[in-house]
């Protein structure tokens, strides 16, 4: 009868087999990396070709940008992850959004004293367009949202709150929970809200409504109006109807153009 498998010889044989397997495994990974490197070069060429034909389209056409972003998201690619990425370098999408990020930060900072760090997407849009000047590229609200989503990485409390068909953009790290958000959404209709309104629409107790409103006051997001008819009104400056009016007379227009 032969002994099977056991013994120094068998162990050595097993070790050798394992070593060979490992070796082969490393070679496999190396192979794939080399393959990826090659494919990457090919992809870069394809992207360059695409850019030479359609780069302008992306710059000028907000709808095309949306399509582009959605397709990237579907396949699991983030063209805005890094300024060093191919997408950014060759299509120039990066610079467009990163610069927009800077402009958004500046607008929010400038208006913070007035609205406590809360602003509607519409107003942000107008102010950014104003800052960009008459001859800059058109920027859509979708562009703003994407830029803001990227800014979240900087840790300073940018967040996007849906209210009644549009969005509120928060730019300071104020703590806003579900209750606060719901009251903001309620206030969107008239720009202000009252305790009775909250109780009627949301079926809350007085105390809960009061706490939420106090918090909004504390954070500088709401202003108290004790002279309103009936009961106290809590106004949200972020929601004030924005009458953006820029008077351009013929003289000023002449001066503005180079």
């Amino acid at each position, binding site marked *: 009868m032969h002994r099977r498998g056991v013994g120094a010889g068998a162990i050595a044989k097993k070790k050798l087999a394992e070593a060979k397997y490992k070796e082969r495994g490393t070679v496999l990974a190396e192979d794939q990396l080399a393959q990826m490197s090659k494919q990457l070069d090919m*992809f870069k060429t394809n992207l360059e070709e695409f850019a030479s*034909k359609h780069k302008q389209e992306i710059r000028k056409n907000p709808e095309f940008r949306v399509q582009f972003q959605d397709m990237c998201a579907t396949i699991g690619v983030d063209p805005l992850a890094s300024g060093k990425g191919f997408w950014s370098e060759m299509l120039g999408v990066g610079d467009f959004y990163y610069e927009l990020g800077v402009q958004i930060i500046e607008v929010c900072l400038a208006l913070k004293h007035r609205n406590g760090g809360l602003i509607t997407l519409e107003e942000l849009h107008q102010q950014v367009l104003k800052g960009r000047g008459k001859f800059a590229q058109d920027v859509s609200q979708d562009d703003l949202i994407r830029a803001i989503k990227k800014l979240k990485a900087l840790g*300073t409390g940018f967040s996007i709150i849906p209210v009644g068909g549009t969005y509120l953009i928060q730019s300071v790290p104020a703590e806003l929970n579900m209750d606060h958000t719901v009251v903001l959404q309620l206030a969107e209709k008239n720009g202000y809200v009252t305790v009775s309104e909250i109780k009627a629409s949301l079926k809350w107790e007085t105390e809960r409504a009061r706490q939420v409103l106090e918090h909004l006051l504390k954070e500088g997001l709401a202003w108290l109006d004790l002279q309103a008819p009936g009961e106290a009104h809590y106004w949200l400056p972020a929601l004030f109807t924005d009458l953006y009016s*820029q008077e351009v007379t013929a003289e000023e227009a002449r001066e503005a153009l180079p």
Partner: protein
Amino acid sequence: MDRFLWTSGLLEINETLVIQQRGVRIYDGEEKIKFDAGTLLLSTHRLIWRDQKNHVSQFSASVLGLESLRVFFSFLAKVAKIVVHLHPAPPNKEPGPFQSSKNSYVKLSFKEHGQIEFYRRLSEEMTQRRWENMPVSQSLQMNRGPQPGRIRAVGIVGIERKLEEKRKETDKNISEAFEDLSKLMIKAKEMVELSKSIASKIKDKQGDITEDETIRFKSYLLSMGIANPVTRETYGSGTQYHMQLAKQLVGILQVPLEERGGIMSLTEVYCLVNRARGMELLSPEDLVNACKMLDALKLPLRLRVFDSGVMVIELQSHKEEEMLASALETVSEKGSLTSEEFAKLVGMSVLLAKERLLLAEKMGHLCRDDSVEGLRFYPNLFMTQN
């Protein structure tokens, strides 16, 4: 609305079309009138509104007659409008849609958008005053409609056809762009699949892949914008690019940091660095990933994350804890301070001022008074007295 006159819409010789936009409604001042769906045309000489349903119905005003423009955005109305103030009509003006009106302005509502470009062109025409260099028939200049029987060199119909062709070509370009984009995306997806396959191989053989290979892999992911499937960490931490970037940041931020008391929020850094670069900007993630490497590379700056999530860059030599002693002094001197007041006194941003006060509170030096009037900090007498 009494400053327009009926027109056949045919352009004069020397008059060229600048831009046109569908879906425009015109208001007499604030009042709605029946002209609710039209095409607005701007030429070098005139602004023309043409009814979409009835092309014969169209009227114009000479650009010379425009006094000023305003853009009107209303949050509640959700449709952008251009407000056009017009000079009063001359007494010999030809008949138009309105004999009289109490309003000196009209509003143009752009239901299908296009107002930005239109406004831009309109402002340009008002400034460039091309009608002065390109004289057309007397009748046009005097705000009268064109007289029948004159020879037209160019008809609105011809121009429309050209614009239609251009639109078709633009459409073709767009569909070609989409086609090319789809093909590109298919190739990009292949890259994603390949990276996943490599990642799973790496996972299976922890330690059998060299560091060099890991770095290579990470840089491939960075180029494509693919999240690292192995560690799920955000793109690019640990790549060469970010290491270089970290070193560059030291050079850029040293002086600004010293000017700002040794500490800056990451948002400030982002704006400062990108404004300085002008092109080839950094993404927020690029900045964060570079900053994460500052400590490891033993550079004179460091990244710090406060409890609130706020991220700052500090000089290594900056000791926030030492700043607390002076913060306590400042607050004690004034009795009590809010973040805004403290920020103003010390010359810091409100964001960082608040973080400092919160840290002081955490360390027990300050305590808070939280009321509807705001958050106010007092020296913590519970600690010091008795």
